[in-house]
Structure formats: C-alpha cells, structure tokens
C-alpha cells in the first residue's frame, strides 16, 4: 500500500512535468503549426539559469524565479530570431528549423558551460519527506504536483477569461482573420511562446529539484515524452496534451515500479506500445483538437 501511494505521487508529479511540456508544445503548435523540438533546450536553458543564479550567490527562491525568466526569454528569442522568419512555411520546414535551433543550443551549452552535468544544490529542507498516516511522501513530488496544478489552472484562466487567451484560441482557428480584425498577430504568437517558455521553465525547476543537476542534453528526453503525450492526446489539442502528459508519466512510473526486473530494460518499449495501442483505437488522439466547421 505504501509503495502504491508513493508511486502514485511520483506518477502524478512526473505526469505533471510532461503535461506542462506537452501543453507548451501544443499551444505553439495550435497557432503556428510548429512542432518545436527545441522546446527541450528552453527547459535546459531555464535550468542553467538556476545554476548560474545560484553560482552568483542569489538566494534559492530568487534563483528559481531567474530560471523561469531565463526560459521565457529563451522562448521569445527563439521565436523572434528563428521562427518568425519562417512564419507560414510548411510543417516540415518548421520542424527542421527547430532541429537546427535545438542542435545549435546544445553545442553552445556544451562549449559555453560544460559537456558534463553541473550540480544544482537546493537547501536540504527542500528535499525532505513527510509522513501521512505512517506513509512517507517526498516534499519535492508533493510541491511539484501543487505547482503543476496551479500552473495548469492559471493557464486555463488565461485562455478562457482574458482577451490575450481568446486571441490565442482564435489564432489557432484562423490567424489571418485575427489580423483582419486589427489584432497584432506577432504579439499573439509572442505571447504563446512566452507562455510555452514559462511552462518549460516551471518544468525545469521541478526537474532540477528532483535530479540536482543540469547537463546540455537534459531537456531532450522529457520533451520527447511530452511530444509523445501531445500525439497521444491529439496534436493541437490543449486538453489532450495535458491528459496525454499525465497518462505517459503514469505509465512510465508504473512500469518502472511494478514490472519484474527481467522486463525493466523494455520499460520505454512497453510504454510506447501502450501509446501505439491507444492510437490504433483512437487515431486522432484521446481528446482530438476540435475542428471548427465553417459552412
């Protein structure tokens, strides 16, 4: 029972990280049709931001905020320098552009900082555990779940209730029409990148709090999983991305915890097989993007 509850907490915590990354990918994809494979490097950059802020002696809380800001700035810089010029290009050209951005950043991290992991040490109190009814639960997974849900609710509020959010939803449907209403499309796209960067920054904070280090390739695997989550949820569907993120995270933790040792090396294969099986049954994903009909 104890193991089950602990693993459930871990599963929701990991799923939440994937959900935030997947949501960031989905927001940008829904508006500019870009599958941003450099999203992982936004996350990595955020983590390096934390590392540098700590190295310069900032208090831990300030360092986390600095990391978030670094991720947002990186997302905006990517949009401005690489993707804006490619606006309206086909999906494949955009995808290849994002690969290029991703590679360039990884090389810069390797040569500019270090090819090896650098440690990020938070106060010991942050990495403790607490007991509920005789069951020990980690502080970091618990806090990360709370942070994740706060972020997801905040984003949902922005998308549903603010004009900027409405503009983003409208842009996903018909960005030219948005411009014909006089709404600055570049600004809407920049806001979507900033939000996607913020979510990647939050993911970076949680990820580094759990692992205690950052390396140039840090963002690759989580974002790969997040990409799988967006496909599972339904490419371009925001709700689907969140659901897909949680499903992938949970499958991964459950496979890790409860598979017999002899099957452990096939963990990812088993998770991916489950995803493929789900897509065979629902080819458009679990929660497909609503296709608004124009008659």
């Amino acid at each position, binding site marked *: 029972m104890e193991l089950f509850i602990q693993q459930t907490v871990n599963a929701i915590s990991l799923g939440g990280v994937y959900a935030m990354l997947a949501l960031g990918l989905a927001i940008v994809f829904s508006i500019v049709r870009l599958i941003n494979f450099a999203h992982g490097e936004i996350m990595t950059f955020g983590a390096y931001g934390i590392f540098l802020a700590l190295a310069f002696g900032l208090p831990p809380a300030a360092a986390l905020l600095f990391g978030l800001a670094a991720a947002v700035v990186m997302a905006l810089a990517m949009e401005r320098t690489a993707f804006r010029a490619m606006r309206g290009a086909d999906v494949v050209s955009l995808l290849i552009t994002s690969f290029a951005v991703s590679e360039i950043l990884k090389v810069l991290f390797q040569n500019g900082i270090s090819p090896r992991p650098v440690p990020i040490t938070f106060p010991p109190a942050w990495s403790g555990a607490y007991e509920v009814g005789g069951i020990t639960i980690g502080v970091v997974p618990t806090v990360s779940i709370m942070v994740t849900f706060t972020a997801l609710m905040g984003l949902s509020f922005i998308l549903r209730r603010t004009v900027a959010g409405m503009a983003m939803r409208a842009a996903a449907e018909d960005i*030219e029409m948005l411009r014909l*209403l*006089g709404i600055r*499309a570049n600004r809407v796209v920049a806001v979507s990148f900033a939000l996607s960067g913020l979510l990647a920054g939050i993911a970076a904070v949680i990820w580094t709090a759990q692992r205690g280090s950052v390396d140039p390739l840090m963002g690759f695997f989580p974002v790969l999983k997040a990409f799988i989550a967006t496909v599972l949820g339904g490419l371009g569907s925001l709700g689907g991305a969140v659901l897909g993120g949680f499903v992938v995270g949970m499958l991964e933790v459950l496979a890790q915890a409860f598979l017999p040792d002899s099957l452990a090396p096939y963990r990812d294969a088993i998770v991916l097989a489950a995803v493929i099986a789900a897509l065979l049954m629902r080819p458009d994903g679990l929660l497909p993007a609503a296709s608004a009909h124009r008659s």
Partner: protein
Amino acid sequence: MSGNALEVRQLEVRYGPVRAAIKIDLDVAPGSVTTLLGANGAGKTSTVMAVAGARRIAGGSVSIFGKDMTGASAEDIVRAGVAIAPEGRRIFGSLSVEENLRLAGSVLEDAQLAGEKSAAMMQRFPVLGERRRQLAGLLSGGEQQMLAVARALMSQPRLLLMDEPSLGLAPQMVDQIFAIIEELRQEGISILLVEQNAALALDVADHAVVLANGEVAAAGAPADLKNDSLLHAAYLAA
C-alpha cells in the same frame, strides 16, 4: 488628395504567375455603397482582400480616406478605419458569440467602450444577444453572417468591406442582411459590397463595378448597368 473613402488605382494581385486582379480602378465615395460584381473567379475577393491588407499588392495603389495604404499590414488598415466581413464569414467557431465580439473590440484599447459596443451589437442583432454564450460555430449560417457583420462593426469602421454576405443564406435572411446594409449606409458608413446576387446588390448600391477575368468590364450607375441586357447576360447571370 480627394476625400474618397476608398480609391483603388490600377491594382494588381497575383498568385505566382496567375494574375487574379489586373489594373483595377475602384472608388467608394464617403457614405455610399459601391458594389463589386462579377462571376466566380472574376477577381472580386482578391481585390477586397488586397484592400484589406491580406493579399500582396503586385502593382497599383490603394488609398483610404485620402491616405495611401498601399502595402500596409492588415492590422494598420483596420486602424485606418476599415473593417471586413469576409467571404465565408470566418467567425471563430470555438469561441462564444460574446467572445468573438469582445476580441474584435480589443483593438479599441478601451475596455469600457468595447463593452458598450458589444452590448449595443447584441441589442442591434437580438439573435446574438440571445445566444451570447453559445459557441459561434453552432449558429446557423444567417446568424453567423450577423455575427461577422457585428464583429466587423466592433472596431467602429468608417469603411466596411462585405464579401458575399448573402451567399448560402435563406431568402428571408438575405433580405435582413440587405436591410442592415441600408441602415449602415444611413449611419454614414461607406461600404464596398461584393455580391453574386447582382439584382439585389444593384438595388442597394450607389455605384457599381463589374469585373470579368480579373479586369474591370464595366462601371457606372446601378440603373444603367441593370438595363444593359448584354452585360447582364455576359457577366451577371448567376
């Protein structure tokens, strides 16, 4: 500079090597309705979208209320006082009726004014008021057209571009749309009306331009064009 709401001179629009609009001249006098007629593929929508800043202009000029807006962005053209109810309506189906209006009102950069405008629109088009919380994609074709017009009016335009507002609507709805066009003209809004329904458009218009194969085939007073049976047979038969 004359004070015309819209002056299009020698306008050219191309899609690669294909010329969709060739040397088009077109005026909309202030407070009047100019209708742009022609068969499918005659270049009407290309012309209107170029005026709205959504198509690249390959040649010629567009001036709006005496200001040269050739090649300006769609966003800046809205700020020059132009709004469009485009072909196919293009309302945002996944947003509610009210959100469609609120979003369009955001260019006013005055939340209170935008709120008042939106309330006024829902009074003017009661069906939008009744369905304010519904997703716009669930409205009927006629209701979507009302929303497209209301949405265009949110930015308080002085020149309204309407591209095939009657297309695919029931006759009763078509009458309603044309009654709205008449009302807007009386309020002093200049209108460029693209229509395939030539008979109705010529009834409401002060000036008419007929396009064929991307070029101006005829222009003049609606009464004259209506009686030109040859022109009618050649270009206006639906």
